[in-house]
């Protein structure tokens, strides 16, 4: 295992400490609960939007905390759901009279722990509701889920809800928006390599030098099938068709397109993929209103990428265009 790591047991804690040290004004960090939240939150006039799943998917979701995005994130260990008390503390500290919205990617562990924390918080009179994101079209059920998995499409739910919350939307309004985004967003990914959780020290799956995993999950869960390595355009075509036909999208749709790197793939390659995705959109009569090329939801250092399409309407276009800021400085 070749990684920048000290004691693997402290990997997540040290990463969070690094994020906190890098954003002393914007963020607060509570090490006991892996909790990162905005220093100016909770705001009594705004619904708090929070998320917490396994670590290893950075920048999702701890680096999505900031104005117009998440108010807090409570990550678990690498690839494991945050324990119930992390979830509970997150809700409790972010509790606002306007409510708390928990955005959950559809994994059994995340769902069960958050559900339990929500019940406990509700029993104390906290106004909290949750929404489940399941944008991955690759497989119906999986080793980690009943139903589809939640992957990079998550970003769009956060962005839209974050923007609406900033404008004062109610909790029910946010649930409606989350529901709308989730119903219009579809993703599929592909892995070229495996990845190695620091505490495990070994790759989470084996893959041949000439193989790819089509439809891979962000914890390395099996996808649709193994295939031989093929040209970038052919890979995009397969992802695009799976995503396009699932909703299905149709000619005339206005869309946002995301090419998300899984961690080990350089941005140069992501633009090679975007080029083909843009060609396919044009061919299918889709108008690309916004595009996102970079890392949004990763699997540690896995080489690979996912393609996401989101069908837009004027409300969503407006929400995606709203100002936002994240805890990762770019320039």
């Amino acid at each position, binding site marked *: 295992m070749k990684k920048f790591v000290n004691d693997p047991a402290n990997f997540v804690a040290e990463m969070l400490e690094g994020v906190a040290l890098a954003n002393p004004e914007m963020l607060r960090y509570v090490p006991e609960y892996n909790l990162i939240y905005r220093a100016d939150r909770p705001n009594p006039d705004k619904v708090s939007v929070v998320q917490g799943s396994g670590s290893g998917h950075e920048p999702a979701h701890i680096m999505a905390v900031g104005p117009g995005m998440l108010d807090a994130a409570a990550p678990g260990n690498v690839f*494991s759901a945050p*324990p*119930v008390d992390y979830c509970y503390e997150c809700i409790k500290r972010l509790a606002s009279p306007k409510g708390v919205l928990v955005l959950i990617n559809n994994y059994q*562990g995340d769902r*069960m*722990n958050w*559900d*339990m924390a929500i019940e406990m918080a509700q029993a104390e009179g906290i106004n909290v509701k949750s929404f489940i994101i399941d944008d991955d079209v690759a497989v119906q059920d999986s080793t980690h889920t009943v139903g589809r998995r939640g992957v990079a499409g998550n970003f769009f739910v956060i962005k839209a809800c974050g923007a609406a919350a900033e404008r004062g939307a109610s909790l029910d309004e946010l649930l409606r928006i989350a529901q709308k985004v989730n119903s219009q967003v579809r993703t599929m990914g592909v892995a070229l390599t495996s990845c190695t959780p620091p505490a495990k020290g070994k790759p989470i799956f084996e893959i041949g030098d000439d193989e790819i995993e089509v439809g891979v999950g962000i914890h390395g869960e099996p996808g649709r099938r193994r295939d031989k390595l093929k040209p970038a355009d052919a890979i995009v075509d397969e992802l695009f068709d799976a995503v396009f036909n699932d909703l299905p999208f149709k000619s005339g749709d206005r869309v946002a397109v995301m090419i998300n790197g899984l961690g080990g793939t350089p941005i140069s390659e992501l633009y090679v993929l975007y080029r083909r995705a843009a060609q396919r959109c044009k061919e299918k009569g889709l108008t690309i209103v916004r595009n996102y090329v970079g890392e949004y939801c990763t699997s540690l250092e896995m080489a690979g990428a996912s393609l996401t399409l989101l069908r837009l309407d004027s409300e969503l276009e407006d929400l995606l265009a709203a100002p936002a800021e994240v805890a990762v400085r770019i320039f």
Partner: protein
Amino acid sequence: MQEITLADFERAIKAAAETALRNEKYFSELDSAAGDADFGVSLASGFRVVQNDWDQLDRSSIGAFLLKISMIISRNVGGCSGPIWGTAFMRAGMLSRDKTSITLEDLEKMLTAAIEGIQQRGGAVEGDKTLLDALIPVRNKIKEYVGKPDADLREVLREAAAVATEAIERTKNWVAKRGRQSFTGERSVGTPDPGIVAIATMLNDICKAVGVEPASQASNG
């Protein structure tokens, strides 16, 4: 009819904790046949903390006590068992937040709330070969005694342990439909469900802890 006191709950939880620790290896072995061999370790991790923190646990009411146990379990037990057991204790605790003693009827309601909580959390139903297939018969047995003013609580406990023990053999040849074991499908046929064995063993150990002779013996890992 006698009431069930906080002290009874303390005694029961203490016995259950000992069950979990004594059977750490055995429960994991059971989980290795068709599951991922973590059940014993997971359960023991949680109940070890219960034992370690024993003296500091909130004892202001039965509910407060159970909610504290719920928190420790959910926090320290991995896999599906954390939220499932945690939910069970939480639901039961919520119905007894301001009580220091309860009736058999209260207990039946708490157990029902726990069962519903487990079903809601993990989506399992009766027949899925999970610990619900022990807990539901136990709850049903207790229900039989509710409203009988002359019911002997020790007798109820013995009967509850008996139906849980019966569940082990009764469900052995079923196919597991929940948790990691469900991924191996038919491989679970012929192997007892670790969750059911754990419930039965705990009830039998609680019997022994309060001096009730159990009807039969589930296991001794």
